């Protein structure tokens, strides 16, 4: 087969139809925006700093304002956004810098509601970190505000804007792994999950994740993002959940579990087994979908497909990069495949050219400036939060709980 034949063959396969839908230029470089934007950031912790890092890549974006209730953290993060005016409260920020177009909300989950709703009320577009809220009431209030405001509202569940995940989803949706029989997801990262505070009076507030009264725990803070990926892939939400949490690694007086397990049941008997722990980092974070013709492993910057021997062959696979996982060989799902195939570099295209957060931020900026469809709406954020809230309840009470549509409703 000549290289020309190969390209024709590649273009002719069903799988490649999905590859061709990707826009290569979107994958590599921060796109110029249709209009320059001035933005504000509420919440200067790790996630806020990560957002700043991605925003700094855009020539057309100026971070004009920055807000955090913790003075030390505000000062530290302000160094990374020298053009930004710092504020101790989001209300002061919205009053003090009126010419910002959009607000990024990266506060603790239980404190999303006020800055998100106030920013919408002030006429700003809003990017709000996920999970959307830690209570159904807060999530519903945010959805209502987003419906009233004629502004873009994006929830920060990043699977939906991730080019590799979009590609993987197109394979799943087109039947590449056929019927889904089970799913698994995990988050493992060895760390104490504590936030340092030089002021003892601030310690409790800064360590909200370890306060069972405020936090959704690991299931909420990590699971909600991973569950949302699977909701989006399957176009289904679970119908039941059971969960348990224990303190295995960090016996330092905490009450919040450092290790959790959950089982989420879907219609038709498909189960999602979930584990999250702060006691070990082995294999990090991934989601796995197992079907009758293959399995898919999704690891945020990379994804692989493992085919059963009796699965149909798609032409492009022959030239794709492969990776060995013990006895199994994963076919790397390649973002930017069409461009690389044209250059004869298909095997080099492994992994995303930017962190997943970049694509979430890019999608939001383009929704604001060019009306690109919103990657994850407030309603989708509410549904993901509702599943996490119910899972958290199941963990705390040791019960098997139903998940039904009533949780997703907004009056």
């Amino acid at each position, binding site marked *: 087969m000549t290289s020309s034949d190969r390209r024709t063959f590649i273009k002719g396969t069903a799988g490649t139809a999905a590859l061709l839908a990707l826009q290569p230029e979107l994958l*590599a*470089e921060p796109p110029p925006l249709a209009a320059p934007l001035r933005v504000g950031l509420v919440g200067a912790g*790790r996630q806020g700093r990560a957002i*700043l*890092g991605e925003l*700094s*890549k*855009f*020539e057309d974006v100026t971070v004009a304002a920055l807000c955090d209730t913790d003075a*030390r953290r505000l000062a*530290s993060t302000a*160094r*990374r956004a*020298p053009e930004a005016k710092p504020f101790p409260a989001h209300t002061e920020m919205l009053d003090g810098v009126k010419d910002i177009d959009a607000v990024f909300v990266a506060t603790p989950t239980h404190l999303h509601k006020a800055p998100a709703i106030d920013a919408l009320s002030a006429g700003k577009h809003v990017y709000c970190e996920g999970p959307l809220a830690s209570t159904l009431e807060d999530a519903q209030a945010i959805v209502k505000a987003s419906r009233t405001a004629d502004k873009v509202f994006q929830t920060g569940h990043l699977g939906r804007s991730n080019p590799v995940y979009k590609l993987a989803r197109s394979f799943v949706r087109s039947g590449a792994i056929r019927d889904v029989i089970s799913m698994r997801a995990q988050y493992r990262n060895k*760390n*104490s999950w*504590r*936030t*340092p*505070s*030089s002021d003892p009076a601030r*310690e409790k507030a800064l360590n909200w994740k370890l306060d069972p009264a405020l936090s959704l725990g690991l299931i909420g803070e990590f699971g909600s993002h991973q569950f949302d990926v699977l909701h989006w892939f399957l176009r289904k939400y679970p119908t039941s959940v059971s969960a348990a949490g224990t303190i295995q690694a960090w016996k*330092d*007086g905490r009450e919040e579990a450092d290790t959790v397990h959950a089982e989420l049941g879907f219609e038709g008997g498909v189960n999602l087994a979930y584990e999250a722990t702060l006691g070990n980092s082995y294999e990090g974070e991934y989601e796995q979908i197992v079907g009758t013709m293959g399995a898919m492993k999704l690891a945020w*910057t990379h994804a692989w497909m493992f085919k059963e021997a009796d699965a149909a062959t798609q032409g492009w696979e022959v030239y794709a990069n492969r990776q060995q996982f013990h006895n199994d060989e994963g076919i790397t799902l390649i973002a930017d495949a069409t461009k690389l195939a044209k250059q004869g570099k298909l095997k080099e295209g*492994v*992994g*995303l*050219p*930017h*962190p997943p957060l*970049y694509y979430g931020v890019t999608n939001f900026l383009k929704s604001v400036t060019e009306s690109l469809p919103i990657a994850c709406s407030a309603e989708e954020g509410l549904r993901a939060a509702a599943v996490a809230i119910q899972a958290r309840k199941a963990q705390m009470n040791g019960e098997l709980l139903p998940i039904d549509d009533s949780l997703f409703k907004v009056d």
Partner: protein
Amino acid sequence: MHTILATHAMGTRFELVLVANSSMPEAQLRAIGEEALFEIEEADRRLSLFRKDSLLSHINRSGSARGVRVDPDTYAMLKVCDEVWRASDGAFDPTVAPLMAARGFHGGERGDAQEALARVGWRHVRFDDAHRAVHLEQPGVALDLGAVGKGHGLDLAARTLRENGVTSALLHGGTSTVVAIGTPPDEDAWRVSLGEGAPLARLEDACLSVSAPHGRTVREDGESRGHVLDPRTGRSVNAVTLAAVIAPNATLADAASTALLVRGAALAAPTEVETLHRTSAGAWRHSAHDSACFDFEAATPKTQETA
């Protein structure tokens, strides 16, 4: 009492030794250490040449087409590189990436080293201070920040520790780059060995970087060649067997120690660094600005010459 934390990043192991003080609970000290480790891991994600999603890969992909905006920390680090490139007459040059790849130090297929050498040159890197942007003025130019990455990560980690009230700590990346915060309890300095027969380094709020031509090697013409290349000739360096620099920050120490290894002589500037190197003949050469931190008495080296 002290707390030790570690992480794997930049192809090596980073370790933090944090000395507890009475006003800080252990859990708080650990949380601060984790915040510092996060800075190192974040620096790795930003500066890795081998991750497609790093900022460095973005600069290398797009920097020749147009200036690439970067965050203030990355920009400041690149400015230190610029300073040391000038002070070393080009002996330190982070545009060595194409040459490293062609010589086989990045894995994969080797290339034409002469052709790659033509693409090496920090003079092709232009800074746009107004936009905090970096421009690679010639297509094919690519940065490899491996020589300063560890120092940069440790500087950010040390900043986090200090901002959170840590007054005594020792941090290192792969044992070759070290940051000392304060001193150990009841001692006047952190003492770091440079190896048998070598002087000790005495550190108090100072940084040390040690470079040597051994470590990663490739086989060429039946010979083993070291990974430190002279960016001006493309050849592996071997005139100096060990180069050590003490500087106020670890980024500068890292860059200056590589420059010293390549150049075989102390830098013309910056003057705030103290340098020590051992020639292939075994002679120690030492250059200090005001206070000397290398303790020759402790080592009793066979040969000692002080410049």
